[in-house]
């Protein structure tokens, strides 16, 4: 009976991992660049926050379907369909949750003392080595926030999932969609249980982020 939750967690875990590797270079680039393109890239990555999930879902659906060049390519070459399966959910979630990963990382990198990074360059370290050995270890709260909020946000998504994945039991039926269906079928008892679990979990996740950050601030001075 808890299969939808398992799918939600699996989806969120994979999304977090994929997004982390996409967002890390992107956030690092945005924090360091003075390019005129920066506002455009920032606006693009922030779009999923303001766009209705149905709009986002619609565009993803259109561009991944077998009638589109991308969808056709994957169908012909790899014989995989990119809509109404778990893979499509991961792709959609990555778009949907992108800003929740990029923005905390970017503001974390921007808050680092620039001299610290320059000291690393002077010590002979490349930008890449500086990113992994100096920048990332020094933005732990931002890093944790990005991971947890992205995870929670992916578990909480509904519209995009429904548009792109539908509601195939055991494949794309995640917890939020399951609740929607229970209400449709007037299974209020099930909806209550599922909703309560979602509510409790979301609260615990957010609480742990704030507790961690408060602890970290106390340990390293209140500045960050």
């Amino acid at each position, binding site marked *: 009976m808890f299969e939808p939750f398992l799918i939600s967690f699996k989806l969120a875990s994979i999304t977090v991992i994929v997004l982390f590797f996409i967002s890390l270079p992107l956030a690092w680039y945005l924090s360091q660049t003075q390019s005129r393109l920066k506002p455009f890239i920032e606006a693009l990555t922030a779009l999923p926050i303001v766009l209705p999930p149905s709009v986002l879902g619609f565009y993803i659906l259109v561009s991944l379907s077998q009638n589109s060049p991308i969808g056709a390519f994957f169908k012909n070459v790899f014989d995989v369909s990119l809509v109404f399966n778990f893979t499509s959910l991961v792709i959609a979630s990555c778009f949907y949750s992108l800003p929740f990963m990029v923005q905390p990382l970017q503001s974390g990198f921007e808050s680092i*003392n620039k*001299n*610290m990074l*320059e*000291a*690393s*360059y*002077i*010590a*002979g*370290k*490349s930008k890449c080595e500086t990113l992994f*050995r*100096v920048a990332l*270890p*020094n933005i732990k709260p931002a890093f944790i926030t990005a991971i947890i909020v992205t995870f929670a946000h992916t578990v909480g998504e509904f519209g995009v999932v429904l548009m792109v994945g539908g509601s195939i039991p055991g494949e794309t039926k995640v917890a939020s969609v399951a609740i929607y269906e229970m209400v449709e079928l007037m299974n209020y008892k099930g909806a209550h249980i599922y909703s309560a679990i979602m509510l409790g979990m979301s609260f615990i996740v957010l609480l742990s982020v704030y507790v961690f950050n408060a602890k970290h601030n106390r*340990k*390293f*001075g209140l500045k960050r």
Partner: protein
Amino acid sequence: MIKICIKKELHGSNAAMSLDVDLTLNAGEFIALTGESGSGKTTLLRILAGLEEANGEIKVNDTSWLNAAKTLPPQKRQIGFVFQDYALFENMSVLQNLLFVSINKNLALRLLEITELTELQNRYPNTLSGGQKQRVSLCRAMMNEPKLLLLDEPLSALDPLMRRKLQDEILTLHREFNTTTIMVSHDPSEIYKLASRVIVLNQGKVTSDGNTKEILLKTQGSQKFSFTGELLELKKVDVIFIAIVAIGQQLVEVVLSEEETSELSIGDKVTISTKAFSPIIS
């Protein structure tokens, strides 16, 4: 020997100005770079470090760091840089901060010993005092076995006692390693103690360059004491006038006659000097 000949347009606090510097530094020299704020001192240091771009040429021994064709990145210049705000790697212990630069553990331990940090080697930067942090930063800069050591107002955030202690340590390190050093400083006593050569920068141009004594001792002719200060107050006491002048952190009283006060007004920059007499130093 280090040859520097650079130009750069700056958009500083007082409108645009151009940094235009042509200098030759001898190996092992300790140079103090001084001048009003906004005169381009930090920019010059950052250009030397490769952190900012400029036109011109920088040549260190036989290696070109900067010329029309290429700019050597900071990673390849082998320099040491000490920032005013320490800029230590917060995620690493004192020893790790040093070993990050180079894995030469013997050098690291020796530097920590010279600066009396051996016992603190496993502490993290946020548990150290300002003076301790700056000593770590100094050691970290030396770990690169730098061809050129750049110190950007390294001691200005510290209290006078800690300043003096660190001045001694900088001096010890300089004697030990004989690294060519440029230090930005505003403190004449600090410059006098450490540097053998002073370069004064004003509006991006070198206005004086020479021996520390010649440039810092501002006495002329037979004057023995000469101070510049700001006139804070002029008051009449019976038949004489008393002027209160602020010289550095100190206030002094000077007795004046009425005609001497006629050309003075509050806020003036004044020079107080006196000829031969026997001062008491206690």
